[in-house]
């Protein structure tokens, strides 16, 4: 199968040219090099999807990263699919290679503005792949996650242990034969013995991580920072190897906020899963809905009316400001500055007032719908929005003097936690953390979605790559978001807030009383939920904290067969040891504060 080339239909957009150009480059190279043989999956409209054999994996990825012109510098995502229950995997020339478990690599080229997907089929009897950590250090946690949740082994991985589930867990939760709910197994009980075992499993043993307990001069102190600590923004643990207050090494430990959002997607109807997305990046509100509904709409072929698109952009930018305000306040707070967080939360309250007037919800409105929005904008929304965007700039100006121009803040953050663009790409850093290294790359500009091409805004970038610049980028982004919202306000298109497409959920009710077909459609969509056509789709968006996407695989059912959530915070945390070595505990706090993560976004 691999080696046979198929023609794939890419969507007609500016991005289609990039995909076609890449396929030409690849075809040219693979004609001369048999180890680059591939099969192009024809039914993925979102990005070129290549199937390769496991023996070729390292060579193929190495060529994509180093060999090809305008290379794929970033490992955007790495996950897996349990294919054993799949019903629809293409027919005849579109039939996908036989596979029990498929490992999926998403790569991103910043020069081509192109995402590609590389898939490797595995048979259940030999779940083993070479680790790609020598190629991308960022693969480390991703491969651990795949091992943890699917039980796929990665040969040559430096530390292949569970990352999301407790070390004592039995089984691999994202396999189809693993139970999804607690009611499917015996009731849980925690005996003293079991508690002892669980707690022992949490003990940090430096030897496991190749750490010495002492150097020639001094004995090291191992400090457990978290999972409950005022400055780790949730339940996040870093085990620190300290020499005095100097950090020798650090091991971040995640998984305390793991709720199995991907597993839940496999039993929630397409529509009823929406509120779960709000709670992934819980500061991002409807920003989380966007990649989910965009992917489903592309899968179903729904064209969203312009008004709905513009309202979506407006609300997303509101939530970008809301999230950045929390970041700004807690950033100052973690540096020991007490007051700014109160002022910024007050602004956020005002912002939520606007959100509430429009959506009825505040932090998690779940207001986007497959094919549009839940409702149209309420009467008088313009006044509320205008009042806010007129109010905020003066406040931001004040904060600038309070926080960014404060001499102590500068001293604490300048030159702390520095990485350059190359390191950022290696480690999968996206969003403000990437733009703080000087690379002005923003998905909204480079691959506009939902109508961002109609807006004028700048991409703020600074080239210090330190904690200070990461804060500055976000502050500038708030100004740009205000600019976008003002344009939404001035040019809000008239029209529908929901598409006419039959898969729009909930469907429009207008014609249901007149003919039986639309009545049945309405009834089914409201009771079972919509049946999405089989296929797969993934639409990344520039979320508050970086690139966020939902890779959705539909088997032609009312629920997702697999829903992979790629969140920006996950790779960002992985980089902490690189950023804090040889600095002090106080610097680590300044670094953590500048990353801007929420643990729900990391653990999902």
């Amino acid at each position, binding site marked *: 199968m691999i080696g046979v080339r198929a023609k794939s239909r890419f969507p007609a957009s500016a991005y289609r040219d990039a995909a076609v150009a890449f396929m030409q480059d690849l075809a040219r190279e693979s004609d001369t090099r048999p180890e680059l043989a591939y099969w192009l999956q024809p039914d993925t409209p979102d990005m070129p999807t290549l199937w390769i054999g496991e023996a070729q994996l390292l060579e193929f990825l190495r060529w994509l990263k180093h060999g090809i012109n305008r290379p794929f510098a970033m490992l955007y995502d790495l996950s897996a699919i349990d294919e054993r229950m799949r019903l629809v995997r293409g027919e005849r020339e579109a039939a996908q290679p036989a596979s029990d478990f498929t490992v999926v690599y998403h790569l991103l080229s910043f020069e081509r503005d192109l995402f590609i997907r590389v898939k490797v089929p595995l048979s259940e009897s030999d779940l083993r792949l070479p680790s790609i950590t020598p190629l991308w250090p960022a693969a480390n946690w991703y491969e651990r996650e795949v091992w943890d949740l699917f039980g796929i082994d990665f040969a040559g991985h430096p530390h292949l242990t569970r990352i999301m589930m407790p070390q004592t867990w039995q089984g691999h939760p994202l396999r189809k034969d693993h139970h999804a709910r607690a009611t499917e197994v015996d009731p849980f009980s925690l005996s003293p013995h079991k508690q002892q075992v669980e707690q022992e499993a949490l003990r940090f043993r430096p030897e496991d991580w190749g750490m010495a307990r002492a150097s020639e001069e001094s004995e090291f*102190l191992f*400090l*457990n920072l978290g999972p409950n*600590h*005022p*400055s780790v923004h949730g339940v996040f643990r870093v085990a620190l190897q300290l020499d*005095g*207050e100097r950090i020798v090494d650090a091991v971040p430990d995640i998984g305390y906020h793991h709720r199995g959002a991907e597993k839940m997607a496999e039993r929630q109807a397409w529509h009823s899963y929406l509120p779960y997305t709000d709670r992934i990046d819980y500061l991002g509100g409807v920003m989380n809905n966007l990649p989910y509904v965009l992917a489903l709409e592309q899968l179903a072929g729904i064209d969203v009316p312009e008004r709905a698109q513009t309202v979506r952009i407006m609300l997303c930018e509101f939530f970008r400001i809301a999230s950045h305000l929390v970041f700004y306040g807690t950033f*100052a*707070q*973690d*540096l*020991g*500055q*007490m*007051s700014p967080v*109160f*002022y910024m939360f*007050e602004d956020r309250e005002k912002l939520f007032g606007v959100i509430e007037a429009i959506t009825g919800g505040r932090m998690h409105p779940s207001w986007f719908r497959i094919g549009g929005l839940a409702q149209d904008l309420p009467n008088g929304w313009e006044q509320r929005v205008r009042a806010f965007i007129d109010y905020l700039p003066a406040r931001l100006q004040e904060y600038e003097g309070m926080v960014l121009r*404060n001499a*102590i*803040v500068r*001293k*604490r953050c300048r030159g702390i936690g520095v990485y350059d663009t190359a390191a950022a790409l290696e480690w999968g850093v996206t969003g403000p953390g990437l733009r703080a290294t000087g690379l002005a790359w923003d998905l909204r500009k480079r691959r506009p979605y939902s109508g961002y091409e109609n807006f004028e805004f700048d991409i703020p970038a600074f080239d210090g790559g330190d904690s200070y610049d990461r804060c500055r980028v976000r502050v500038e982004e708030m100004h740009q978001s205000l600019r976008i919202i003002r344009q939404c306000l001035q040019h809000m298109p008239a029209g529908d807030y929901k598409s006419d497409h039959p898969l729009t959920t909930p469907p429009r009710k207008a014609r249901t009383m007149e003919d039986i077909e639309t009545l049945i459609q309405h009834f089914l969509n409201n009771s079972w939920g919509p049946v999405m056509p089989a296929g797969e789709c993934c639409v990344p968006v520039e979320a508050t904290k970086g690139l966020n996407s939902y890779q959705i695989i539909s088997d032609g059912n009312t629920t997702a067969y697999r829903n992979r959530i790629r969140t920006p915070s996950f790779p960002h945390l992985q980089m902490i040891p690189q950023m804090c070595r040889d600095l*002090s*505990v*106080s*610097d680590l*706090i300044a670094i953590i504060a500048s990353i801007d993560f929420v643990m729900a976004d990391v653990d999902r």
Partner: protein
Amino acid sequence: MNTGHADIAMTLLNIFGVLTTAVLLTALLTWGERRLLGFWQDRPGPNRVGPFGLMQVVADMIKLFFKEDFIPRFADAPVFLLAPTIVMATTLLAFVVVPFSPAVGVIDMHIGLLFFLAMSALAVYSVVLGAYASGNKYALLGGLRAAAQTVSYEVFMGLSLMGVVMLAGSFDLRSIVMAQENGWFLLPQMLGCAIFLVAGIAESHRLPLDLPEAEHELTAGFHTEYSGMKFGLFFVGEYLSILLISALVTTLFLGGWLGPWLPPLVWFALKTFALVCLFILLRAALPRPRYDQLMAFGWKVMLPLALLNLVVTGSVLIWRG
């Protein structure tokens, strides 16, 4: 005999009056600080219990007194218990040398200033012992920071006051106040005053120099393991030292009780209150420097400045004859 009795009664009244007032004011200060912070941070602060939320103090005290008297099993119990009392004792003892008005004040020692410095130096044992006895790593780091910070900042705390001593020609605080009848020492000793204030903030572990506690880094630093009334003692100790430092700045640089029209005690209280507000404002406004920056600032900026102040003051005095 009668005069003797009257003297003893007067002295006792003075002692208990001063110490009780200090402790009561401290309790009030915990409420005042929260209200002021609230005012500056656009929020009400504690305003529910009693008039203006004043009874919040009582509520907090009830809570602290009735909490379980908990000692972690990994702690060194005798030292763990002793530590919080030291800070209370030394800070209260330092109050005895402060002349509040011509009539109020516990004792006039001719080495009053040195006594204050000695007491404030002893207070660090409280933090270090508490941190050590807690058997907690955060506490240990906090204790280390406290030891280094206090020792460094004490050096120029003492030096910064020597200018005042030269001008007044005495270590006795009452004489120092009397020496300011023709003008506060704030003017000739502006630098000394600023340095003493910084050192005072560091001594009382207040933001921005609260590194031994540094909530966002060390959870609660040296008192991480403390709860109930033992925590309360640390807490009261911190507020007592705010009062103490403010009272001393008033005495040494702002002319103590001196001032027209109003009674002397009122002048003293007003000046001290203004300084306390300054302490709270600083907490509301400033972020916290890093530990090494704090040490560098102490040794490389404050200490040379304190020495310079000393040399200049001395030279001027000699030149004037």
